[in-house]
């Protein structure tokens, strides 16, 4: 069994597709490096790519930053903001979505209003949030919350609407109460869409947090590298250290990817019946 798994992993690492992936990424990095260094090597810089810092310089800068406490503080602050907004969106969004799915009257009252507010991009709320909330931290969390909230509600509602009518009918025919139907039919059927909604929402929250930090100007940071990853990027831009911008972008990419994967893992734990393959 153990041997089998090891050979499987080996096979997937040394397979043709992963080899091609590695080749592709190396080619991409080489092209990037050449493009960025075109000014030194060719005498004149290529358009667009010539202005981007080369990957080798980015790696060097990143190495330095790994020892910088401000950089890690940014990680921490951004993660906390994302988490607070996201958790609030889950706590409010999931019950709201379920209530809209279960009660027709409630749905008729809230859904049109909800649909009117939904097309407004979350970032357009930034100034209003800053005016309204007493601290900057709360306003960033609020905008982050909005980013995930609409997606979560829509996904929960969609999941509940997609339930086969016959499930309700057979549950009712066999004498289940309202609560039983909710507990045994609606809830299990919506969990997969809750998982999808939350991982999509997580992606949006990282997007929003970066922008909110850029627009509101960070806050709470002790140094130029602190105050959140979005602020870190913006500050690097203002300070002219372009390598740091790329470091910040990659860091946010890693953070967003890791949190989406984490959510997917947790979701898989709650939906074991979907693991058929």
């Amino acid at each position: 069994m153990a041997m089998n798994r090891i050979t499987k992993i080996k096979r997937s690492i040394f397979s043709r597709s992963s080899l091609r992936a590695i080749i592709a990424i190396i080619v991409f990095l080489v092209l990037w490096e050449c493009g960025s260094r075109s000014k030194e090597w060719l005498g004149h810089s290529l358009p667009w790519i010539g202005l981007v810092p080369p990957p080798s310089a980015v790696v060097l800068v990143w190495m330095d930053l790994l020892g910088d406490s401000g950089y890690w503080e940014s990680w921490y602050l951004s993660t906390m903001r994302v988490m607070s907004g996201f958790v609030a969106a889950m706590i409010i969004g999931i019950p709201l979505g379920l209530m809209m799915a279960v009660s027709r009257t409630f749905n008729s009252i809230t859904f049109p209003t909800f649909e009117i507010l939904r097309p407004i991009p979350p970032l357009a709320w930034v100034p209003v949030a800053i005016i309204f909330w007493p601290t900057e931290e709360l306003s960033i969390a609020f905008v982050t919350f909005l980013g995930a909230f609409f997606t979560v509600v829509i996904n929960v509602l969609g999941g509940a609407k997609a339930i086969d009518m016959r499930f309700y009918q057979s549950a009712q025919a066999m004498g289940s109460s309202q609560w039983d139907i909710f507990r045994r039919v609606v809830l299990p059927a919506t969990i997969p869409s809750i998982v999808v909604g939350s991982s999509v929402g997580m992606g949006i929250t990282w997007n929003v947090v970066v922008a909110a930090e850029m627009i509101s100007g960070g806050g709470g940071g002790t140094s130029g590298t602190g105050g959140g990853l979005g602020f870190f990027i913006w500050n690097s831009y203002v300070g002219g250290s372009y390598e740091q911008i790329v470091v910040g972008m990659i860091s946010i990419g890693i953070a967003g990817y890791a949190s989406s994967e984490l959510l997917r893992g947790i979701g898989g734990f709650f939906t074991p019946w979907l693991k058929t393959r």
Partner: protein
Amino acid sequence: MEQVEQLLKRTLPFQVVSPETLGNIAGISQRETFSEGDVIYSAGQSANDVYVLASGRLHHAITPQVNAKIHEKSLNAGDVFGWAAIFEGERIRLADVSCTEPVEVLRIDGTKLLDLLRRDRNFGDAAMRSFSQLISQQYYLPPSVANRVPSTLAAPATTAEEPGEPAAQMASTWTLTMYRAGEWIRSPDPYLMMIGFMLLLGSWYLTVEVFKLPRFEDLPGLTTVVTEWFATDPMYGLSIHTSEYYQHVWVSIRRVAIAFLLATALGVPLGLFLGWSRTFREYVFPVFELLRPIPILAWVPLAIIMFTGSETPVIFLTFLASFFATALNTMLGVESIDESYTRAAYCLGANRWQVFREVIIPGAMPYVFTGLQISVGVAWFSLVAGEMVSGQYGLGYVINTSYTMVRYPTIIIGMVTLGIVGYATSAMVRVAGNYMMQWRLREMALGGR
């Protein structure tokens, strides 16, 4: 008499008429017998009677002057011929009919038959239409001949048939819409919807302007925003009567449109190729996946560095967001196509290009349009961020500068306008998608969804 009615009931034109009319037709029909080789009528004679073949076989040859697809035909018991006797205008035989066996026929006077059918209000017209159908389908004659059978309706058959139909169809869709609207008005939904709006607007109005709750009193109130928005002389310089307002809206729409079109033009082909060719995907997709987790908004400073001016960075950001969504969904769409479709196409001798054009592209369409809808949404999302951070003009810029210059009501105007414009553009994409994928809509309607 019973027998005659039974026979008539079996023929195509008369099976629809009422029992009363059927009895009357049986009353005016006369039995006649012919022996083998007899000619019942030949082309060019004047046509007075319609015949129904009761037993035996006949040879029916239409003159070459008439454009029939097939000229010769043998008739069996139950067939109706001699329909030229109920034509409108000139009634002249168009065929030679001779007996290949001893036959028995029913002869029905054409003028009397027409009279009877006209009197049958419910089914007469249907019988007339069956005659036209009979002429075009069993005798393979063009509609110009088939339409010479008159209609019991006031207008002559030739004009009544074709223009009448779309009109009827339009009337039915219109009534259907009206019916649905009526149902909706009678259901509690619109009133509950109004309650929802009232709750939202009411709580905004009460908390901000009436009770002036702490924190809320800093926000712009409902009445302030509305009066500002519709003022001919706005206090903060932006309302529906100022040209700047439309300029900002127009700039934003233009940016989104450019980015969206560019993203569609590049993203759809890329997604199709990614899904279609394994090799291409194995080389390109890893790089795609490497760049995708980076939030679009983290690109803002890099975009400003890479592109000069204030216009290109914003368009680039908007484009990037749309591009990823479109390409990824298109790829998923290609992957969603059932393997057996491509295999079937290959088995039937299609080459790679034909499979791509006839199977891959239409098969991926539903996902492509889902992707385009997402793409419009994220385009507005990142446009606002781009405009807020850099850029001049545009709704995001309005919102941000109104904040820094303390023109609070204008912030709300910008937000609401963004919501309206964003909603309108995604609705446009949805309508376009539904229009281009009628087959899918029907499929879904049949599935009861």
